[in-house]
């Protein structure tokens, strides 16, 4: 017991020591990323500020509410991440498949844990930008614990549903070599359908129905709606239920599609 703890500790501290080294190696990239984020939220802020120039409320949302929502949605974008596509499509695929077919550990669960870890890391890197937004753009976080709990549960559920959906998309890479094009195509769709550009409330009825019929919004617009106060807490249980249904559906679909995709590789040799 002590041994494993010791071992874990030394591994973690070695990993931890690597971080500053990696930081310096990727310094330029880090700043480029930071600048990109700053530019993005600046544009978002002033765009919405101009939209609200002559209106007190749009679709029942005030300027503060909307801007808050948009900024929060921007920060929580990692919830709708699409790493799986790139991983599956990369050269590592063969190694991954061998993992899957030989190891007793559930391949999907392993990836889920990995993605979850990645999410936490990404959110950590978002922190400086969040701090900036709080000071520059008046970003407000709720002080109510219940709201946070409701949000976190919804975020996790939504993330999970999106994970399974990404899994299905990632299986497409087994059928084509055009990983890059596919990835960018999905990125464009994700940005809009996750509800990160426009609050759901502002969309015309028909569009909102379409958006809610695909899982992207479940991972972003829905939880952020709770966090930003736009969606009342009383709706939370209903929301969680819907998300659970999404998880069930996507979970089954993902396993089905994966089964056929793996069969294709093992039969045809990828």
């Amino acid at each position, binding site marked *: 017991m002590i041994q494993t703890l010791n071992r874990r500790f030394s591994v973690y501290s070695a990993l931890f020591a690597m971080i500053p*080294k990696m930081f*310096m190696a990727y310094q330029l990239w880090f700043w480029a990323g930071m600048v990109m984020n700053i530019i993005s939220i600046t544009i978002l802020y002033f765009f919405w500020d101009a939209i609200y120039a002559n209106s007190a409320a749009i679709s029942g949302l005030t300027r503060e509410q909307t801007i808050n929502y948009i900024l929060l949605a921007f920060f929580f974008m990692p919830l709708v991440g699409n790493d799986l596509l790139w991983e599956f499509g990369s050269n590592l695929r063969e190694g991954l498949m061998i993992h899957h077919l030989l190891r007793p550990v559930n391949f999907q669960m392993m990836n889920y844990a990995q993605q979850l870890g990645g999410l936490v890391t990404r959110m950590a890197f978002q922190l400086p930008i969040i701090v900036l937004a709080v000071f520059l753009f008046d970003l407000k976080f709720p002080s109510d614990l219940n709201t946070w709990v409701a949000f976190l549960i919804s975020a996790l559920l939504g993330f999970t549903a999106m994970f399974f959906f990404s899994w299905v998309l990632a299986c497409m890479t087994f059928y084509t070599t055009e990983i890059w094009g596919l990835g960018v195509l999905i990125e464009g769709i994700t940005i809009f359908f996750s509800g990160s550009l426009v609050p759901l409330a502002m969309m015309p009825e028909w569009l909102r129905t379409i958006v809610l019929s695909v899982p992207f919004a479940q991972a972003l617009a829905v939880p952020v709606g709770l966090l930003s106060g736009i969606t009342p807490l009383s709706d939370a249980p209903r929301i969680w239920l819907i998300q659970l249904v999404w998880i069930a559906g996507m979970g089954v679909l993902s396993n089905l599609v994966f089964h056929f995709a793996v069969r294709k590789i093992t039969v045809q040799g990828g």
Partner: protein
Amino acid sequence: MSVIEVNELSKVFQVPKKEPGLVGAVKGLFRPRYEDKQAVNQLNFQVEAGEIVGYIGVNGAGKSTTIKMLTGILMPSGGTVRVLGRDPHRQRVENAREIGVVFGQRTQLWWDLALIESLNLIAKIYDVPPARYKTALEQFTETLELGDLLNVPVRNMSLGQKMRSELAAALIHQPKVVYLDEPTIGLDLIVKERIRDFIKMECGSKGMTVMLTTHDLGDIEELCQRVIIIDGGHVIYDGPIETIKKRFGKFREITFETVEKAKPLDLPEGAETLLAEERKVQIRFDRTVSTASQVASAVMNQIEVKDFSLSEPDLADIVKQIYNGALDMEAK
């Protein structure tokens, strides 16, 4: 005037000094320290028209740095270099028109294009008149057997095919000076032979001046009459191959197949036993001290010999000796 004139040519690089560990990495980021590395130090040599010169040295001796300065890619730190009367760096474009380069490891052809398309593009880049291009193309197709390859993209070619294509591409504009860097690397013997034959024929017959850098001494032996050896940025030898062989190739080896079991032998001066196995004895002797017949008769008088063979000094061995300071020892 020589085709290539190198005079007191030097090149110094500033290499960042890296300190180990995390602290070193941080220091290196904020105040990097540099140290001078002399890659090439006051080189002097001349190459005349039509010569095929071998340019050899261990890794890091300064070969590629020299070639980069000759081709105009790199600017010298000191001294001068003139190719066909021009400064290859200052007059890059004019110089480039008259040279051909083969970088053994990197192709200059376009990866996805059929060979003929690459060649067309190159012909256009070098402004080769269509009639001349056509003749050259026909000729190369024949001598390099490119017929089937013309419509194949480089990415689908084998190493040997790639190299043949590479040569065609490098020479299609009839350059006056050709730099070949590892042209036969990784190729099997048969293909090597064909490439060497081609180079001999093509460059020799057209009076092209060739500088050949390679680690394959078989290339040198086949193609070059003259060899320049560079070490630590200096020229340590510049002269005909024959002279090297004669001066440094003083050792010969005779391998005897014996009937009797090997036993200790009394050998003439300058001879020593390299190997004494069950039925095999290998003697190495200094040609300048004893003759082959002296050694052979001495051995055959002491032990019954079934067969024997005499081997010539290997250029590789000789060069190894030179690297190891045989030249310095000669001077003493």
